[in-house]
């Protein structure tokens, strides 16, 4: 049940990361056009919110609030470590 919020969290943070020019340059070699960057950021924030809301729905208010924090931390950590690994192998 908590799997969906976890996935949403990872995807959301991945998009937020892609919406940052420094990481665009690391991963693609260049900055992306402004429109795409904005879209990535918007979609990223949306998914991160969905991840937290999903935790609340899946586990109730109290437990869900705590799960939500854990889910967001997990997603951010996965993206951060992946981005590091990817930019090193370039």
């Amino acid at each position, binding site marked *: 049940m908590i799997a969906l919020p976890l996935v949403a969290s990872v995807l959301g943070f991945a998009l937020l990361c892609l919406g*940052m020019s420094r990481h665009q340059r690391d991963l693609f070699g260049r900055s992306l056009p402004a429109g795409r960057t904005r879209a990535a950021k918007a979609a990223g924030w949306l998914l991160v919110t969905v991840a937290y809301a999903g935790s609340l729905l899946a586990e109730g208010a109290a437990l869900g609030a705590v799960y939500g924090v*854990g889910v967001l931390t997990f997603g951010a950590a996965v993206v951060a470590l992946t981005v590091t690994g990817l930019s090193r192998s370039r």
Partner: protein
Amino acid sequence: MNGVNGGLRQSMAWLHTWAGLLVGWLLLAIFATGTSAYFQDEITRWMQPEITGVRQPTRAAEGAVTWLTAHQPDADSWSIALPGQRAIASTVYWRQAGEDRSAARDNTLTLDGNGQPVVSRPTLGGAFLYRMHFDLHYMPVIWARWVVGFCAMFMLVAIVSGVITHKKIFADFFTLRFGKGQRSWLDAHNLSAVLALPFHLMITFTGLVTLQSLYMPWGVAAAYPNKAAYFADAFGSESPPVRSGEPAPMASLGGMIAQARKVWGGAQPGFIDIALPGDRHGVVRLFRSGGDAMDAREKTLLFDAATGHMHPLPAAKGGASATESTMVGLHAGRYAPYALRWLYFLCSLAGTLMVATGLVLWTAKRRLQLPDPDRPHLGFVLVERLNIATVAGLPLAFACHFLANRLLPVRMDDRATWEVHAFFIGWGAALLIACVQRPRRAWLAVLMLGAAAFAALPVVDELTTERGLLPSLARGDGVFVGFDLTMLALAAALGTAAWKLYRRPAGARRKHAAIAAGADA
């Protein structure tokens, strides 16, 4: 505004550094033991490989009462700690008339699911590491709690000042650059701190709250004539029962548990306290298992021991009390099911890494500013040696503790105490190496010893018990498999760190080589 070191950000950076540095090594121990405490039940099970079977709280409770009635019928009080969701054995304590509360710690026995004393190697299990988290060791408990509280307050200030100082908190959110020396340590420190920031803030604040009546008794002093009045208000005002002298066998404990579970919506009891067992005035107190609600002090229920009749329910808690007990529950995380428990563990590990990388970062940065790297000033030497002893030494201490559990003779005197001594002997060895060897060699030695010790654990497990990694995999025994795999992962982490350090040419060697080349020319 001009603070202690210039503008606001520089002042907060200064405060952050000093707040972290002064208590960093103790904080590392507190974080490391706290991290392990999230799996203390599993650690206890691993450290008692002789105990098998399933968890049955009601049967365990009734079996415990049978044993206690047979062996300690005249005790003033009995206490039964039932197995939580992740444990199997129960522990019983008893106190004779005239003994004080601390005697219960000596009058204790472990019983299995049927109430039979367990034949298992004497050990404190995961409880030693858990208690060290706030009681430290080799010192009076109250001193330790003050020291830990002091560290926690410094930690809180370090977090706040760290957030104020880290202006680029979002720009650097995903950045971790390897192989860039001081910059890499800073990135690692920032990442482990920021990614789990809500957890770090929560755990530090709730940690202080957990011992708040010790640290801040002034509200009680200002509003109540004495502490007893406050505790009566806060935790229920039933005065302890007085011995009637009339014997009365205890009513069915199973029946009382069933009543309690109805009130608790199905949750299990975690702890049972029986005052004056066998007497007509005996009182049974059932505490709800921590594994079932975030609120740590939810609804304790009282029963007449002789009749099994439940006392009136306690009044509902007010907002502040509910907040306090929820905060305590959040800190201990006993309510957390497995998925959330692993998230707690990972966040706590991040916190441990945050403290460790912060300490190493300090030397990495200062080393560049040393006028003569071969003759650093005393403060630098102190920090560098303590870093080796603690950042590399603590893991070694953990490994020694677990190795002692497997290797110490089962029948030796004070076995459990010596398992604990093994922890500190390992830590002491690291300190010795750190003081005696040159820093780089010391780092490598302690890291490699730790890696070897952790890697040896599954092997020793396989050789000395029937519950090693391979048999446990075959049996689908998650706890034993998980423990041994975690030990291997820690061995790999320490080994990797040692390897990376070994491959990096030493700064001093580079400089010496340059000087030598210049002298030869």
